[in-house]
């Protein structure tokens, strides 16, 4: 009624326009302040200068209410004035921000006794990354991100270090109070992305990171690693239609390639044609692809035939890797409608994203996100809220990782320097089969992989819920909610028949149906009696999950180019998987406050988890935290110390295990000659598992100075996780390869600092800076009895381990043998070092993490950037290792010219390279000249009888200095036993986000229906300012989003993304 009246009244009094400006204490205009007419719905917002104009029915009697977040609202009687200047005062009490905490309960931040940090979501809709999780990089103290390098892959998030050996170490994602599935999508060498990446930043109101188990104690088992709370946008009251549109385009291009040599071509031992096996008898010409390495002769245009039999020159092909890559464009379009009145609200939003990868035809994404939030308040007794996030995602051709034979990514390692893209294309012969690309090395022609093989998956994800809040009395409410997180999907992988590696081809398809349900009831009580306040919550929760997957596959195709399970020449195989769980919980919290400066918080939760045995399936865990608001207690002048809080917390969190982890049973093995056979699980399960327990304590201080212009938060924590449930490799003579073990302890301790401030604030110009810094120290206190090392993962002879007494993540591998005194010992007959196994090479954990962000505003322009810093941590580059072994890198040129001269031109013999004459073992007169590469070191000391002398430790003793020229190919191929050459410090400084925005002035928009418009130029990962890894190797890359970090193996070449973003609302 009121609204109608207002609308009708509007034209009649349109001439009564009041103009004015809203200013802060320093006289600077406050943009976006709300100016509303009392007792009406008329409301306007100030523009970038704080200016506004509002129509009122009557200038003499009109009363305006001016409000701005963080400032005390003012009520102003217009009294007939036409131009107003309103100075707002900062509201110290409004610094008591209200934040969303566990279970979706909103609380004043001053009452919280644990560390939390807010993430700016607005930036995420501007400098976009297709994966929302990637955008957390550099935004939160103590939060580490590791990406797969690919736009559609999984991202690993770790807060405060690694707590679990093989279990989940990532924080729990909670959307509107309900946990969602964020499991990694890694399946073999394909990565289907993390569960949380489905969230759309356009639909998110806020993100809160609760860093330790202290904060998340109430989520229990799943939140031992902290939690990320996401609150979706709700309908808001506003002028005009409440429609906003966001259009974003981001282009990507690779920024770095490995440094390839372009001097020597395909071949072995410095020879263009090593032996007759390389000659095509029909053409009488060296035919390419007979060897898989670039250890041949100088590229001088010798005759060289392509696979298809075309003879051309043996010449360098400097761009043969680069040509596989292109620039791409990812577009994101969003439209949202938001409306609210006093009792109801609604918001609808639709987003369409289409994108692809810098590698041709890979990772092509089409994603539709729908969001719907609606609420109705039947005052005063009942409020009902519903929400729904639906995402439909279609991804074509996810790139295989980890040097999978089907991955076109392999080119960056293996592409022979003398092969041109035109030789690789066409990639198939008249029968549709691949030309043999290489006879060894185990990978396909990249153009074959790109054009003939394919995979596709379609996902339908539904996250939604209904919440009803019942007001029983003034102080007592009951909230009940039911929510679900469902994922339905199908997909296939197709490997074409006739490949150089996969001759038969293969096909597999899957259907997935995951359903997770949460039903919760919560009784909420809050009461304030004089100086005392109490709030208590008591609830129960039932969480059930059913994850079901079926798969059908054929290991040999009947015909080419037919993507179907019917295309099979063998009986297709089928398999089925079903994981189920039920967790029932009862929990309670109570907060006691005294005089607004002392708060004590107690929580307790008991879980009954179906994944544990009867004797252990019920477990209880408590937490206690407190905060003392120093600024309230001591009444310090607000202009200096605006707010100060000391907080402390201690918590224990239990963690159950995954389903089906108690009893080993037999698996279907297959059908052999008409008989089904079975095989026992190779994992020994434990029917007596106990829950894991993480105990964590933290102390912190939150300070705000100078009316909030400078804030400083610091936290110190330590945590210990015991009764680790992990899968340990066991001696296989037990009949099992792995066993579920319930032992061991891991400790973490660390510090986190966040500083933010406004360095300059004038009318037209402001400069905000914020910085995060964190350090975490991890220690593996114990593993299972008798075991001092646990292998988390690895590659070839290199492993990533948990070593007792050391931080988790020691990287070990074969390395050159060193005498007790440190000298490298060289073999006398080959000139290569002896080697030891499992030598410590490094550790993947960083020393510290930091980030600096800054925002400059000048009039309508703003510039924001974010720099992420990681210090320390090591990475093993398998890509660099393999590219050196293949002789493709500039590094591998070392000694080649010398060898060529010695071996080919002078024809020096093996003895001469070793420094002795061909006959009689006399010193070779020209021993000084380099004839290849020398390993630095010493021959073993021999005794009089010619036997190797060993010291007290049983180690060889250095004798004469080695002076042995090794063939360069032999030198680099010895990497497998000399692994320290490929471990790199993974420190970096990266400019990971830049936003340069221009907000259109209100005066331009005043005659249009548009309220706000902003155009931004944005960029991500634009510049790696500092790093130590070789070109083309991203220090952040990882071959897995699991716990075995520190290995680089064919993720993606580094690329930068830049584009523009346009936002408009009307």
């Amino acid at each position, binding site marked *: 009624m009121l609204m109608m009246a207002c609308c009708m009244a509007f034209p009649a009094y349109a001439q009564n326009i009041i103009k004015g400006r809203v200013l802060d204490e320093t006289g600077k205009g406050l943009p976006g302040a709300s100016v509303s007419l009392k007792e009406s719905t008329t409301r306007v917002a100030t523009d970038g200068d704080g200016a506004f104009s509002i129509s009122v029915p009557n200038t003499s009697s009109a009363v305006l209410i001016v409000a701005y977040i963080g400032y005390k609202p003012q009520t102003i009687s217009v009294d007939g004035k036409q131009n107003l200047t309103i100075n707002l005062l900062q509201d110290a009490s409004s610094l008591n921000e209200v934040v969303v905490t566990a279970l979706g309960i909103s609380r004043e931040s001053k009452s919280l006794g644990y560390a939390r940090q807010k993430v700016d979501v607005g930036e995420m809709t501007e400098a976009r990354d297709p994966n929302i999780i990637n955008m957390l990089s550099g935004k939160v103290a103590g939060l580490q991100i590791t990406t797969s390098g690919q736009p559609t892959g999984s991202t690993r998030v770790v807060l405060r270090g690694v707590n679990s050996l093989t279990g989940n170490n990532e924080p729990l994602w909670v959307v509107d109070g309900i946990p969602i599935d964020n499991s990694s999508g890694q399946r073999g060498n394909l990565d289907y992305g993390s569960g949380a990446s489905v969230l759309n930043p356009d639909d998110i109101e806020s993100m809160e990171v609760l860093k330790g188990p202290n904060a998340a104690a109430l989520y229990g088992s799943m939140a031992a690693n902290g939690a990320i709370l996401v609150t979706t946008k709700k309908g808001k009251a506003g002028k005009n239609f409440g429609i906003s549109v966001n259009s974003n385009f981001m282009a990507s291009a690779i920024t770095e390639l490995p440094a390839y040599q372009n001097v020597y071509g395909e071949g072995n031992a410095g020879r263009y044609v090593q032996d007759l096996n390389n000659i095509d008898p029909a053409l009488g010409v060296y035919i390419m692809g007979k060897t898989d390495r670039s250890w041949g002769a100088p590229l001088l245009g010798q005759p060289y035939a392509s696979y298809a039999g075309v003879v051309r020159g043996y010449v360098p092909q400097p761009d043969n890797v680069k040509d596989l890559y292109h620039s791409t464009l990812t577009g994101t379009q969003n439209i949202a409608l938001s409306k609210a009145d006093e009792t109801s609200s609604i918001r609808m939003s639709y987003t369409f994203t289409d994108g692809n990868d810098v590698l041709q035809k890979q990772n092509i994404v089409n994603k539709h996100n729908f969001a719907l939030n609606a609420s109705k308040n039947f005052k005063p007794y009942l409020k009902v809220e519903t929400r729904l996030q639906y995402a439909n995602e279609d991804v074509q051709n996810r790139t295989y990782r980890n040097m999978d034979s089907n991955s076109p990514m392999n080119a960056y390692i293996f592409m022979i320097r003398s092969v041109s893209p035109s030789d690789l294309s066409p990639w198939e012969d008249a029968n549709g089969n691949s030309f043999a690309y290489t006879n*060894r090395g185990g990978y396909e022609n990249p153009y074959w992989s790109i054009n003939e093989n394919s995979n596709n998956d379609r996902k339908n994800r539904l996250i939604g819920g209904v919440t009803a809040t019942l007001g029983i009395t003034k102080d007592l409410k009951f909230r009940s909610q039911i929510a679900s997180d469902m994922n339905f999907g199908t997909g296939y992988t197709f490997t074409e028949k006739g490949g150089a590696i996969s001759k038969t081809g293969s096909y597999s398809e899957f259907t997935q149906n995951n359903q997770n349900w949460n039903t919760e009831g919560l009784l909420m009580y809050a009461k304030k009696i004089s100086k005392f306040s109490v709030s208590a919550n008591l609830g*129960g929760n039932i969480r059930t999950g059913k994850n079901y997957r079926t798969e059908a596959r054929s290991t040999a195709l009947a015909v080419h180019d037919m993507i179907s399970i019917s295309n099979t020449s063998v009986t297709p195989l089928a*398999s089925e998987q079903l994981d189920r769980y039920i967790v*029932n919980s009862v929990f*309670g919290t109570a907060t006691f406050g005294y005089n607004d400066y002392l708060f004590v918080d107690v929580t307790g939760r008991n879980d009954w988890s179906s994944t544990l045995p009867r004797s252990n399936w019920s477990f209880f865990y408590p937490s206690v935290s407190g905060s003392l608001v120093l600024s309230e207690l001591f009444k310090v002048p607000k202009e200096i110390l605006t707010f100060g809080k000391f907080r402390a917390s201690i918590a224990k969190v239990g963690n159950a295990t995954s*389903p089906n982890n108690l009893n080993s049973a037999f698996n279907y093995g297959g059908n052999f000659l008409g008989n089904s056979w079975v095989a026992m699980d190779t994992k020994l399960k434990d029917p007596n598992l106990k829950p894991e327990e993480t105990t964590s304590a933290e102390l912190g201080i939150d300070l705000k100075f100078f009316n909030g212009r400078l804030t400083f938060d610091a936290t110190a924590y330590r945590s210990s996780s015991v009764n680790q449930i992990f899968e340990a490799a066991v001696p296989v*003579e037990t009949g099992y390869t792995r066993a579920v073990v319930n032992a061991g302890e891991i400790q973490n301790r660390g510090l986190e600092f966040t500083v933010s401030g406004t360095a300059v604030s004038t009318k037209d110009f402001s400069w905000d800076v914020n910085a995060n810094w964190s350090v975490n120290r991890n220690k593996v206190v114990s593993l299972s009895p008798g075991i001092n090392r646990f292998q988390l993962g690895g590659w070839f002879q290199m492993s990533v381990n948990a070593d007792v007494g050391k931080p988790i993540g020691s990287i070990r591998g074969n390395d050159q043998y060193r005498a007790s005194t440190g000298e490298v010992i060289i073999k006398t007959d080959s000139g290569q070092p002896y080697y030891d196994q499992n030598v410590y090479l490094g550790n993947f954990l960083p020393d510290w993490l930091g980030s600096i962000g800054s925002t400059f505003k000048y009039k309508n322009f703003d510039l924001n950037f974010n720099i992420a810093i990681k210090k320390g941590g090591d990475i093993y580059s398998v890509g660099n290792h393999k590219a050196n072994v293949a002789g493709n890198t500039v590094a591998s040129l070392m000694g080649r010219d010398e060898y060529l001269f010695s071996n080919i031109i002078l024809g020096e013999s093996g003895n001469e390279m070793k420094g002795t004459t061909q006959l009689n073992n006399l010193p070779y007169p020209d021993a000084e000249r380099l004839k290849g590469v020398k390993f630095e070191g010493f021959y073993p000391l021999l005794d009089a009888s010619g036997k190797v002398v060993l010291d007290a430790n049983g180690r060889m003793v250095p004798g004469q200095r080695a002076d042995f020229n090794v063939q360069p190919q032999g030198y680099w191929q010895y990497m497998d036993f000399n692994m320290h050459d490929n471990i790199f410090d993974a420190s970096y400084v990266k400019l990971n986000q830049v936003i340069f925005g221009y907000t259109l002035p209100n005066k331009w928009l005043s005659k249009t229906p548009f309220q706000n418009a902003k155009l931004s130029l944005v960029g991500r990962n634009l510049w790696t300012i500092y790093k130590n890894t070789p070109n083309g190797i991203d220090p952040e890359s990882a071959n897995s989003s699991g716990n075995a970090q520190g290995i680089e193996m064919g993720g993606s070449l580094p690329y930068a993304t830049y584009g523009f973003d346009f936002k408009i609302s009307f």
Partner: protein
Amino acid sequence: MKKILYILSVILAGTFQSCTKNFEETNKNPNQFNSPDAEAIFTGVAKATVDQMERNNYLFFWTYSNFFAIDGGTARYGSGDDTNWQQMYVNVLGNINQLKKRYKDNPQYANRIQIAEIWECYAYSYLVGIYGPIPYSQAMMTNTPIIEFDDENTIYASLLERLKKAADGLKLTGADTFTPDVVFNGDLLKWKKFANSLRLRIALRCLRNQPEAAEAAIRELMTDETLLMQGVADNAKLSYGTGEGNEAPYFIRLVKNTIADGDFPKLNDYLFTNFRSYKDPRLGAYFEPVPVADQYAMLDTLASTADDTLRIVSYKIPHLGSPKSPAILPAWGLIGQSPISGTVFKNFSKPKASILASNKPFSIMDYAEVCFMKAEAKYLNYGGAKTAEEYYKEAVTVNFTTWGIAASASDYLNTNGIKWDTQGKGFNYYTGLVNTDIPLDNLTKIWTQRWINYYPDGAFDAWCLQRRTLSLDLPPLTNAGNPNLNSTITDIPDRWEFPNVERTYNPTGYNNAIAKFGANDLPTVSLKFAKPVVRRDWNTARAFYDPKYIQKWYGPTIQSLAAAGIPYVLVNKFVRP
């Protein structure tokens, strides 16, 4: 307030407590079997065992046995990998253990438990022959942090005892047998004969280190030969099939999948030289002739029946053996041109196509081997109804018959060096380092023929035989791939190194096992059953190129070439000096 909270929590707790009634059901994996049929387990075990044996053959033992030359990778005298240990202990012995655990107390399964026992002994006899000390008495224990290894002697003694017990324990009547039985199709008598024949094989192998137990077993078996396999119908083999999941690993690796030319197994030049020396028809039976277009054109000097000239001609030969490594040691100072210079991979003979068929059965043990073993037993005076020579001749004849060349057997058996009490003059190896002479000694004859009989599936046993007897005078591998050996030149490994994972996951057991050898885990440690190796310094060996082993293929004259219809290129013609 507190009271209310307390009451509420008790009520809620009670409610949830009762909700746990579906928990156990929920945590059951509906796609797994808790108590499968014994047959389903045994079929899996048998397949896993033989799959692994075929894998080891193409990766390792085919090179060790000198049947094939395989370039690259582990075949270049690698000394084992983690896979074998895991496959044998987990998929084979682990599942046998599960089978026994579930059925040993069920009297209706008594025979099947004995069969499982026989199979377990077979698997252990394989492992002990590869590594020496292995976890045996403490294997399959899951509740101890340390698993000790047993000494070779203990294991051999125990295996002989267990096999006897199992063979004797089989009750040949009644329905208690595996159905299906992928090895003997339910024939319990064949199982019994296999168990005894296996016992004979093990006893002969451990004659050096367990002489008493071995001799006793051999004597017992030779007293009643009906305990052993009595004909090819008793052969132990596992069949493969043509469909997906049924194919032989040889086929999957060498035919179905892509393999580099160099990694494909090719006729080994030492076996080839032996075949050439004694005009062995098995050259054509075991190996495919090289397609004419790919045959190696070799230089030869032939006389003529028409005049007194010699002609240097080039003509193609249908078979050729490949060296394990063509690398020539610089210290040999070889001059002239290698007889096989300029050869390419496709010039060498490949295994008979039938060996690579997807459904080729794997021979676990055959009757010919039993005859060879009886020949040896008799030769050593451990009993036997026939003479050693009779057993020997029967063995060779059975082998020839198996390969479809029965008609050539008697000619072959009359060749010097093959014939009892004769000695044979073989060709030199192409670098002259060794030759394929066969001495007068008849035991060496038995061993040499037994070695050839093991082709292709018995490569592991061929390796055991060679280590026990050192009867073949083998050339070295001149480009060994094992970087842990302080040498690029090596003889065949004497054992495999323990897998890497043992050092990490069972360090105490591992170190105690190493101590049993005298402190190192190298492939050059001789096992107890083996004859101690006297190492040659190959650098000081006398080497010379000798092409005789491939020359005069069709006869000594130019006319014999023409008679065979072989085209040739005349390179030179000169009067006999």
